[in-house]
């Protein structure tokens, strides 16, 4: 139990630390990969809490997602390597307030929401996968299908916007 607590704390601090690194660096790739390692640390926290499937999934999904984010950041930033002297920050006060409000909101949710009884023993890892599958295809199916459909719509819309119109032949 104490070892478990230690590792939860360790990975939690690692997640926060990498989260801080995201904003401390001016290199876009470093920033994106710092966010990746922050998320990987979260995945490790899941593993420590014996939620094996969720942990492995988190560790797997984030690697691709953050890498894709990295290339977009490199594409759209004027100084992606952060080697120039350009200041790439903006709206500092607004960001500070937005960050503070989200933090307070997150803490409030964590403290005041009734999370129900705490499970004394986590079910076996294989059983968890089965339970998760039943949950996803049962009670939570509508939510997940809606989320999936929304993401798909957004992807199609984004692709449609980014396709360059064909040039007219006459010109």
């Amino acid at each position, binding site marked *: 139990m104490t070892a478990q607590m230690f590792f939860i704390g360790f990975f939690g601090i690692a997640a926060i630390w990498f989260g801080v690194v995201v904003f401390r660096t001016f290199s876009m*790739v*470093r920033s994106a990969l710092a966010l990746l390692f922050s998320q990987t640390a979260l995945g490790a926290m899941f593993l420590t809490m014996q939620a*094996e499937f969720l942990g492995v999934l988190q*560790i797997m999904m984030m*690697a691709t997602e953050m*890498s894709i984010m*990295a290339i977009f950041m490199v594409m759209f930033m004027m100084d992606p390597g952060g080697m120039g002297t350009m200041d790439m920050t903006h709206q500092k006060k607004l960001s500070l307030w937005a960050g503070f409000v989200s933090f307070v909101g997150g803490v409030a949710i964590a403290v005041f929401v009734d999370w129900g009884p705490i499970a004394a023993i986590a079910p076996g890892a*294989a059983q968890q*996968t089965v339970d998760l599958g039943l949950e996803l295809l049962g009670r939570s199916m509508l939510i997940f299908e809606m989320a999936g459909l929304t993401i798909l719509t957004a992807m199609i819309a984004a692709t449609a916007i980014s396709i360059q119109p064909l040039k007219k032949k006459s010109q």
Partner: protein
Amino acid sequence: MTTLIVVILLIFGSYLVAVLENWVNNGKFRLTAPLFAAMAMLGRESILSHKPDRLFFEVAPALLLISALLAAATIPLTPNLIIADLATGALFINAALVYVLVALLMAGWGPNGAYAMIGGWRFLGQLMAYAMLVVMPITAVVMRAESLFTTEIVVSQAELWNIVYQPLGFVLFFIASLALCFLPPFDLPTAEGELAGGVEAEYSGVRLAVFRFGRLTLIITLSAAIVVFYLGGWQGPLLPPWAWTAIKILTVTAAMLITGQLMPRVREAHLLSWGWKLGIPLALLNILIVGILVLVFPT
């Protein structure tokens, strides 16, 4: 103890892959060639490029090696010779191998060189093409075994290997594996003769040795994964389990290396186009067929 045995086997396996690669590429079968190559690499100066992202540059080769080793940890070589028989084993292999992408991005971005950077980002595009062709065939394999345990996947093939049960999945996974190890014809991130080595271009000396070793380990790990998912793992008549595993892995490795020799390098745009327009529909079809088979002929 198991960990030690598996690591030693992986090192030996990587050596054999290097011998095979040399044989296939140059037509010369020399058992000492990889040793001399390694000695030469380790003896050379490891040059640092101008203004590198030092952290990425140093971490990338190690991360490549680590991700291959982690993936190997959930692959059973015999019924008992497996480092971690996880309840999410089949998923974990994939999770570990995604970090090959992260390693190559780091190796591309780190040294502050144009060729390396192009190679690194190219692999991101390559992942877009092959990622679904890794996950979806594994899904079909898992559907038949009704378990994510890699050992149970092997046991599920006792009567009929998956290569016969779901040949479409095998072909797709085999191609995706070639792309994942960036072997020819999918060697876009390194691209000899075009990108001057791509992600490897700025590496030399010890760092290059680690990078190459990581890639060899990756190849042997993926061959082992193919054996476990499609070729019945350790199962086979007469010979002991370890012998069957070894024979199958080496055969698959040879097949992977020879396939690359027979084809020209694929263009990135073509790879993406084929991956999405042909590969993914076929992978979905494979899942459908396996689903029907599982329901009609339950074990």
